[in-house]
Structures are given as C-alpha cells and as structure tokens.
C-alpha cells in the first residue's frame, strides 16, 4: 500500500517535471507565432525555422568545443536572417504569406539537414554535445516534491516563463504594444496615426523567427544533445495551432503549450509504464495523440477563435479600399 502510493507520487513529480521540460519548445515557438501574428504577419514556417535553429545550434556548439552560448547566439543570428528575408518578401514585396511560409518551411528544413550533412556527414555513432545543466533555485528546490518538479530545471525553462510575462506586458500594457497590435488589426488606421507599419511588422517578424530558432536550440540543448532530422517532429506546426487556439494571446499560448506538453509527456509516461501495466499498444499509435489533440482542440475553440484583423494581409498604402 505504502510503496504503491510512493510510486504514484514519484510518477506525478516526474510527470510535472517532464511537462515543464517539453513545454518550452511549444511556448517559445507559439510566442513567436503570436508576436509575429499580432503585427499582421502569419508565419507558418515555424517547423522549418526550428529545425534550422536546432541544426545551427548543434553545429556551432560542436565546433566551438561545447560553447553553448555560441550555439544560442548563432541561432539568434539565423533567426534574424530568416526574419529579414521573410519580412522582405511578405512586407516589402507584399507576397502571399502562406506561399512564402510554405516555401520557407521547405527551404529551412533543407538547409538545416544540408548544413549538418556537409559539416558532420553520415556517421555510425552521431556526435553529441553537452546539454544544459539544471539550475537549482536555492530555497525553493528544497521543498519536497515541488522542488524536484518545478525548481530544478535549466535556465530556458525559467526564462521562457519570464518571456511570456514580458511579452504580455509589452503587448497589452505599453504604448509600443498598443501600436504593435494596431498594426496587426488595422494598418491603415495605424498608418494614418503616423505609426510606421513596415517597421513594426519587420520587428514582429524578426522577433518571431528568433523565438522559433531559439526554440530549436532548446530541443538540441535540453535533453539529448544530438541533432536528428526528426528532432522537431511536428512541434512547430502544433505551435502554430497553439497560437490559433490561444487567440494570438501570450498567456493563452502558455495555456496551450502546457496542454500539449501535457499530452506529449503523457505519451512518454504511457510508453514507460507499458510493460508495468501490461498494455500492448504499438508505440507509433500513441505518438499520433498530440496531432489528434490539435485537431480536436482547434475544432472545439472555433466559436471564440479570433484572428488579428489584418493578419495575413499585406499592407499597401496606395490600395484604394480594403477588400475581404
């Protein structure tokens, strides 16, 4: 009796711990999609940008003999580059954002794998890098159970929560944030008020791609320290779904990310308990759960689904009338 309950507590603690670990990539990417979308740019290339960030982080860390900081900085740099290119095509040239997004997804995926293959090649045992060390919060981590679950994580986990709060504050409580959202809701009105629509949209796009790219870094640095072609495995696309589910709101993006990290961790939990419970489910069928969950969640929220009004539409000052 007592051993069984002890096991259960251990399972819960490790489950919560896992949820927090898997929450970060969803959160960073969906925040990126949200921020970009709030300025009016619908960036669906998240999956590709994440993979590129992961590849670049792995390679630059590997070749700087384990300098994680270099890895992250290169990922940021790549994020800026991708954002600039995406912005040039969608903001300056006013091209269709879905077309550019699809193309960038393919291009970034291609470049990510190409860079890895060119610099590392095909090896029998893949090279790996040191992963991030956990950062124990002094007093709080000593609290039984809670300390293990919540306060012994790597820096990324804490930072991403701070990032949610910051982006919420910036978007909804500051003048700049108001301008920023205005550009995504009604660029014409914003332009009339003297807000630089182009500049805000570029900034939004670039912040977005930086977050996606760094989210890719986290995937490499958090658990395995390896780069594989399947390291992102749909998390980028799900994050776009989270942004829609969260009505392009940072706090709701946190809720959505927690939900999907919960589902993903559940999959791993069931897999690890399978032999104990005597279940014989093919592991691949469990892996479909996050994707099925995305479909269900998106169908459920449709009544209150809202988009920034001008999202996906390029702004043309000389266009006579907004058409829908």
């Amino acid at each position, binding site marked *: 009796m007592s051993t069984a309950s002890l096991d259960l507590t251990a399972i819960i603690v490790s489950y919560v711990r896992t949820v927090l670990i898997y929450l970060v990539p969803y959160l960073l990417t969906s925040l990126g999609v949200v921020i970009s979308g709030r300025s009016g740019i619908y960036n*669906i290339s998240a999956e590709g940008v994440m993979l590129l960030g992961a590849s670049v982080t792995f390679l630059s860390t590997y070749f700087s003999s384990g300098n994680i900081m270099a890895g992250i900085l290169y990922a940021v740099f790549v994020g800026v580059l991708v954002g600039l290119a995406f912005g040039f*095509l969608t903001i300056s*040239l*006013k*091209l269709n954002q*879905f*077309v*550019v997004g*699809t*193309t*960038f997804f*393919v*291009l970034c*995926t*291609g*470049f990510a*794998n*190409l860079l890895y*293959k*060119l610099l590392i*090649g095909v090896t029998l045992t893949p090279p790996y890098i040191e992963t991030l060390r956990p950062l124990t919060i002094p007093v709080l981590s000593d609290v039984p159970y809670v300390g293990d679950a919540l306060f012994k994580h790597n820096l990324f986990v804490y930072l991403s929560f701070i990032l949610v709060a910051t982006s919420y504050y910036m978007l909804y409580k500051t003048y700049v944030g108001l301008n920023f959202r205005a550009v995504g809701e009604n660029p014409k009105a914003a332009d009339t008020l003297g807000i630089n629509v182009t500049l805000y949209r570029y900034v939004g796009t670039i912040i977005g791609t930086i977050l996606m790219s760094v989210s890719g870094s986290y995937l490499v640095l958090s658990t395995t320290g390896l780069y594989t072609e399947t390291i992102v*495995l*749909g998390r980028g*696309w*799900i994050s*776009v*779904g989270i942004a*829609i589910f969260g009505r392009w709101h940072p706090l709701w993006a946190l809720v959505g990310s927690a939900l999907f990290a919960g589902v993903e961790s559940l999959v791993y939990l069931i897999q690890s308990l399978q032999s104990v419970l005597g279940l014989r489910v*093919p592991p*691949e*069928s469990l*892996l*479909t759960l996050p*994707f*099925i969950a*995305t*479909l269900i969640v*998106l*169908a459920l929220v*449709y009544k209150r*689904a809202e988009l920034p009004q001008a999202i996906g539409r390029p702004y043309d000052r000389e266009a006579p009338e907004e*058409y*829908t």
Partner: protein
Amino acid sequence: MSKALLVKLAKISLPYIISISLAFGVAGFILYFGGYDVVSGYQTILTASFWNFNSFFLTLTKFSTILLMSLAFLVPYISRKFNIGVEGQYLMGALGATLVGLVVSAPAGVHVIISILAGIVFGSLWASVPAFLMSRYRVNEVISTIMMNFIARYSVIVFAMSLWRDVASGHPMTIPISATATLPLLNPSPPLSSAILFSITTIAILYFTITFTVFGYELRATGTNPRAAEVFGVNTKLLMPLSLVVGGSLAGLGGALDVTGYYYRLIDGMQSNYPSLGILIALLSKGKITFVLPVAFFISVIDVGTNALQRIQRVPIELVLILEGLLLVFILVSESLRWWRK
C-alpha cells in the same frame, strides 16, 4: 516585326532565366563549399536523367508521382486552399491500395483496378477530415492537413508492422501485394510501369474539367474572389472543402499507383521528399495546370540528377529541395519587382 516579338519574348523570359541562374548559382556555391566538383556537379544534375534508359525511365516514374502530388496541391490552390496534407493523403492512398492488394483476391485486371480505386477513396477520405473541420468548425486547413500527415505517417508504420509485416526487413514494410494487383509494365527491362499513363490521363481530364466545365469555372471564380463568386450564386461553402477532397483523391491515386506500379508493397517513408517537391511545383506553376507538366518534368530531372550526384559524390539529397525553394523565391521576387516598375 519579328524583332519586336523577340524583344518581348526576352523581356518575359528574362526574370525566369535570371531566377534559374541565381538558384543554380547558390547550388553551385553549396557544392563548392562542400568541397565537390562544381562543373561535373551541374553536369550530373542536368544530364543524369538522359544517360541511359534506366535513368530516363526512373525520371518518368518519379515524374508520374510528383505530377499527381503537385496536382493534389494545385486543385485546392485554385480555390485558394492550401492542401499541405498531400503527404498524408498519398500515404493513405498507398495504404488503401496495399490493403486491397493483400486481402482481396480477384482476377488480374479487376484486382488492380479495385486497388487503385481503394487508394483514391482512402486519399479522399483522409482529406475529407480537414475539409469537414474547415467547413463545420472553421479550422485552418494548413494546420489540420499537416496534423493528418503526421497521423498518416504513424499509421503507415503501425500497419506495416502489423499482420502483413515483412519480417525479413529491418525497415517497416509490408510483404508484397498479390501479383494480380500489380500494374503491367510498359517496358520489362529497364522497368517502366504503366502508372505514368494514369498520371497523364489524369492531368488531361483535370485540364478539361478546370478549363471547360461549370465546376472548374466556379472553382476558379471562388479562388479569384470568393465574395463575388458567392454573390453570383456559387456555393463556395461547398466548393472549397470539395476541392480539398479532390486534391486528396489525386494524392491517393499517386500513392496507389506507386504501390501497384512501382514498390508492390507499403513502405515507411515511401513518400520521400516528393510531397514538398510537388507543393513547390504547384506554387511555381502559379496554379496554372498547363505549367505543371513542364515544371514537374524539370524538377524530376533535377531530382534524379541530385540522386545520381549523391551516389557519385555523396552530395546531400537536400540540394534538390533547396534548389527548388530558391527558384520559387527568386521567381516570386523578380515578378513582384517587375510589378513594381509597371
């Protein structure tokens, strides 16, 4: 007179020539950076398809698959819908054809036809889920079709590892389908499957449908201006999801043809990078069905060339995706720049 025509032709083609050169320029830089022989690299990429009948037939086989995949994206794209779920629909089509090919027993001609039909049905059913979610719950089709891709990928593995698993192979794949469910070969050795006849017939039928029928006209009207189309009595609420289902049936046909005509079984990963190639081909063709044919052939040639290059010089196969993606970007840029000047 003819000189003016020539100048006009040059003006039209110049942006495309520049775009192709730029894309190949970047590819050359990648080859150089990777320490490969650039000149022989170009030569291989462009000519490998025509070295012998074997590689030419391989090009035709790939062309047949890629063509259907780009049509699967293109038909919904005409009504402004993004069917990124080509991959999943293709895989389910392959799964459906394999299932019928393994389970059903029928005389030779009939069996293969039911298998292909099963593939078409499976593909369209797979696409009808996002189509339903889109029309009933307004779920963005980009996200939902992608989700269906991942579900399909895992379903293929589960299916291939189940009852009909080929235990001799370490990779998830089924045992071969019965011989009655296979398409006849046009040429026995090197092999060329009759699948390509189906692809060509399909594109001909589609061209006719899109250009001359009411359905095609309404589809184009929906894509050009959904509001106006609706005002003039086009049922856009039905057409948009329907176009996704049609796309799914095309991708399903592609999967079924690959099973009955090429692989003769279901293999995990048999979709290769063709779904991405196909989608980009449709975008490169700007939704014009007549452009798909030459563009898809060109991309198939490059794909076979890059594969050959991978065998000879160990050049990463991603080069073909990057080449095509860059080509699309450069063409988009050059066209919008031209639009600016006007």
